[in-house]
């Protein structure tokens, strides 16, 4: 811009011409416009800051609600399925100690400690370990064995609930399961009933015969036939042995 008086160069923001000191006629208008622009700028700035702050607060809350909703759903699902979570965690724990458990089970098996075997197997949830599946037949047969053992050794000890009749029913029912469990099944891997497992199962069957003769007072011949008898005939033989009914 040129000074109207001396023709020297002046800026729009200069109040007077730097050469002849003539007042700049555009200066006031420029100053007023600059003031208005600054005011507008500040107002817009404030508005932007306030709006973006509100937006940020809203976004944070929404995000928090979304995260909480996710966690709520997750924990409700976990709480409803806590048994499966425990099952999963326990099987991992059992699998990590398989060799130790195998050693222990073999120890119980070698000692023919039927009750100890079942107690250890159940206490450590070993039914969860696929690696120990070859012990499953020994376990199920031992379980049935100890139900029968408990009832046999308690014969004659009657109370309000446990009468000898009830015990005999338990014995004959479980004998069916016991002898069934001893039979090899088509779908079963041979590792479950051969080798040491096979010898254990044989001795289990033999001991069952001895216990039946001693406590149910059946004859040795009857004990030999027991695996192929029906539940009813077994029950009759035991009742006769104990002299519950006259012939």
């Amino acid at each position, binding site marked *: 811009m040129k000074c109207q008086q001396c023709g020297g160069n002046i800026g729009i923001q200069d109040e007077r011409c730097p050469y002849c000191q003539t007042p700049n006629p555009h200066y006031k208008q420029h100053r007023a416009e600059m003031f208005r622009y600054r005011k507008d700028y500040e107002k817009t700035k404030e508005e932007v800051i306030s709006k973006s702050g509100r937006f940020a607060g*809203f976004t944070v*809350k*929404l995000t*928090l*609600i979304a995260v*909480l*909703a996710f*966690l*709520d759903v997750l*924990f*409700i699902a*976990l*709480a409803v399925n*806590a*048994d499966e*979570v*425990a*099952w999963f*965690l*326990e099987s991992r724990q059992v699998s990590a100690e398989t060799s130790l458990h195998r050693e222990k089970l073999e120890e119980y098996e070698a000692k023919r*400690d039927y*009750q*100890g075997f*079942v*107690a*250890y197997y*159940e*206490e*450590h949830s070993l039914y969860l370990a696929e690696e120990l599946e070859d012990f499953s037949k020994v376990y199920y047969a031992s379980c049935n064995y*100890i139900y029968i*053992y*408990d*009832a046999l*050794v*308690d014969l004659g*000890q009657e109370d309000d609930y446990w009468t000898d009749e009830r015990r005999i029913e338990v014995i004959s029912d479980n004998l069916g399961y016991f002898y069934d469990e001893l039979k090899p099944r088509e779908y079963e891997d041979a590792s479950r009933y051969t080798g040491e497992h096979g010898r254990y199962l044989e001795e289990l069957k033999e*001991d069952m*015969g*001895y*216990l039946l*003769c*001693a*406590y149910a007072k059946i004859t*040795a011949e009857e004990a030999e036939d027991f695996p192929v008898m029906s539940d009813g005939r077994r029950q009759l033989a035991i009742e006769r042995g104990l002299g519950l009914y006259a012939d």
Partner: protein
Amino acid sequence: MRIKNLFFNLIIVAMCVLLLISGGFFFLSLHDYMSAYHIEGTSLLYAIQDEDYGRLVELAKRSQAAENEPTKIQEECYAVAAYFEAASYYKAYLLAGENEKAEKKAGIMEEQMEQMGEFSYLAEEICKRLELEIR
């Protein structure tokens, strides 16, 4: 705007409460499912008191399988259980003429009797119940 804010805050508080409840319930259930079942010494004593030796054997085996450090009284209960178990097989083997097996069980009976402590009087009771001569 304030009402909207209050609404969001209420939702957040409610969700936090729900999270605490569901999380707490989950961890408690998990603890219940995963914690081992401990046989108390008193259960063993009750079984002895009730002369429920079959149950005593089962409880003793479970307690031993859990591999917890037993108290002196528990050890004595284990000995009673082992004595009864050995005696029950001793009778069965003896009647079946399996003398070698019977002798092994008799050895266990003698061994366990020494460890029965203040319950050693039960040996006589067990033998009487199983119709055995006292060893």
